[in-house]
């Protein structure tokens, strides 16, 4: 995007006519981002429910055990979904190196000075020390960092999960690839970590949905819809500030 060298106040003047800001529709989230996001949503939902059941069955198979396969079925669903989830996470990590601009790793790991500065601004915004959320086209730096953390949790979940899965095998791929996790921590601790990380992911989800709604209300950029359509409608200000690397605002 070509951004002319001008001050942001000038942009505002140009962009806002009679209180109405011209919006630009920007394609932010490519198809792969959106698909992996929604696969994650449904996988996490299914995995959390079935996983909690495996830990603490809240229903009981009635009648003769011969005719029942309640836990067996739930575990099957858990494992099948786990495979989908694992492949999905793996692909998303790959996509952060091969995907489009806003799918890439620099959206998640703040390395540039501007994104580090944006981190502080977002924190100030969340703690009511700043009125407006700093404009961004893709993820704001704080959200990106949170998604890095959540992906680390995902990877922990995948490793502990497959380590537990490997217990059913005597030899072969699963024990030789993931067996070390059990030996390292002791299997009950692997189960504990697997359980606690589930709760952390649920806690993250609460905040994730909340911050989406909050920023949607603040910015009216179609943030919530963007994860379905891929498009955000952004003010020139947004696009400018985001792409000129969050330079400090100059007061005229």
């Amino acid at each position: 995007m070509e951004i002319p060298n001008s001050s942001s106040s000038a942009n505002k003047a140009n962009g806002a006519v009679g209180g109405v800001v011209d919006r630009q529709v920007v394609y932010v989230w490519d198809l792969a981002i959106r698909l992996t996001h929604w696969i994650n949503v449904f996988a996490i939902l299914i995995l959390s429910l079935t996983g909690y059941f495996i830990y603490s069955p809240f229903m009981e198979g009635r009648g003769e055990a011969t005719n029942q396969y309640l836990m067996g079925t739930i575990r099957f669903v858990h494992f099948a979904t786990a495979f989908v989830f694992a492949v999905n996470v793996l692909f998303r990590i790959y996509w952060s190196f091969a995907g489009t601009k806003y799918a890439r790793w620099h959206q998640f790991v703040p390395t540039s000075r501007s994104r580090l500065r944006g981190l502080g601004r977002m924190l100030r915004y969340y703690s009511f020390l700043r009125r407006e959320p700093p404009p961004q086209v893709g993820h704001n730096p704080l959200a990106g960092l949170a998604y890095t953390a959540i992906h680390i949790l995902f990877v922990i979940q995948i490793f502990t999960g497959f380590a537990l899965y490997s217990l059913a095998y005597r030899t072969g791929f699963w024990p030789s690839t993931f067996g070390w996790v059990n030996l390292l921590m002791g299997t009950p601790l692997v189960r504990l970590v697997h359980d606690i990380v589930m709760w952390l992911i649920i806690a993250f989800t609460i905040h994730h949905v909340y911050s989406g709604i909050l920023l949607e209300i603040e910015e009216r950029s179609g943030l919530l819809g963007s994860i379905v359509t891929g498009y955000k409608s952004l003010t020139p200000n947004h696009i400018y500030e985001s792409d000129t690397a969050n330079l400090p605002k100059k007061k005229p």
Partner: protein
Amino acid sequence: MANPEILSDGVWAALERSMTSRTTSRNVSRRKFLRFCSAMTAALALPLSYTTQVVEALEQTRRPALVWLEFQDCAGNSEAALRASHPGFAEIVLDLLSWNYHETVMAPSGKAAEKSLADTLKDEKGKYIAIVEGSIPMANNGIYCTIGGRTALDLAKEVCSNAYATIAIGTCATFGGLPAAEGGITGAVGVGDAIPGLRLLNLSGCPANGANLAATIVHWLTFKELPATDSLKRPLFAHGDRIHDLCPRRPHYDAGQFVRAWGDEGHRLGWCLYQMGCKGPNANYNCPQVQFNDATGWPIGVGHGCVGCASPKFWDTMTPFYRALPSVPGFGAESTADAFGTGAVAVVAGLTAAHAVGSIIRNQGAKSNGQPKAKKTIEPNQTPARPTEE
């Protein structure tokens, strides 16, 4: 266990050949001897046809020497091994080997006992089997366990490094066991950690099943080598499969039928003990097949969950024994994963709600200041106005 009545012809032929051999000169009936051989073949998870080979090998054995050392132990493994009367451990195995030194059971004492140990080390160097029971203390130069003025480590080093092989028996000798549990001050470790580089077999468990010890010895006598092991040096025939996968209560697990309280209806019906803290899903051992006390029972069989006694550091990792998951470290002994997890979610939900209230107040404030936010009145999808130069 294989039934001698259904032994193959080959076995009977071997039996015929052995009629005049040492078997009959023992105090053991040939029927009992054969029963023992077939039971050992079964315990080793070998096809029944191997019974012939086992019978022949045991016929020809020239009574190799064995020494049994005890360190930080309770003699539970000695007890378990010697009381494994079915299938005749005491009668047969004690006869197959020259049991030269074993503090709990040997007749000599004092200097005479030490002499028989020293003689074995000298005369049978590289040929005898060393069995170690109990953990070896490493803290303070190992002063927590000394025998005849020598530390356990010193003794074990001498005896084990001169042996053909060392068998660590019981969870204390294999992985440190109870003396190595959190809070222990003796720096207890298993044999493998105390003396690296030994030809070692870990017969773990609390106690290790005597039948597995007998089977290991039979394997050695028959095939002249130790059985194949897993990554923890435990024999695969005993630790290859998971208890959970062999458990007779497993159909109830799969059906979702769980004991919820001791003595409830599910408990009386023999349902799965997972909710009562059974660690069978984490433990590899052949208890369900070989069982204890003359194969009359085993923990899960009699209604108590598995505690994973054959796993490394089981006293620390498998506790609490009566809960499905361990406590959350650093949050007090009684904190369950559930309480922690729901607590974490509640805290985040609470903070989120508080933040939402804060945001609403802030936006109200902005409105009442008479500064409507320009961006809220926007028509979306308008032609973008590019920033232009001044």
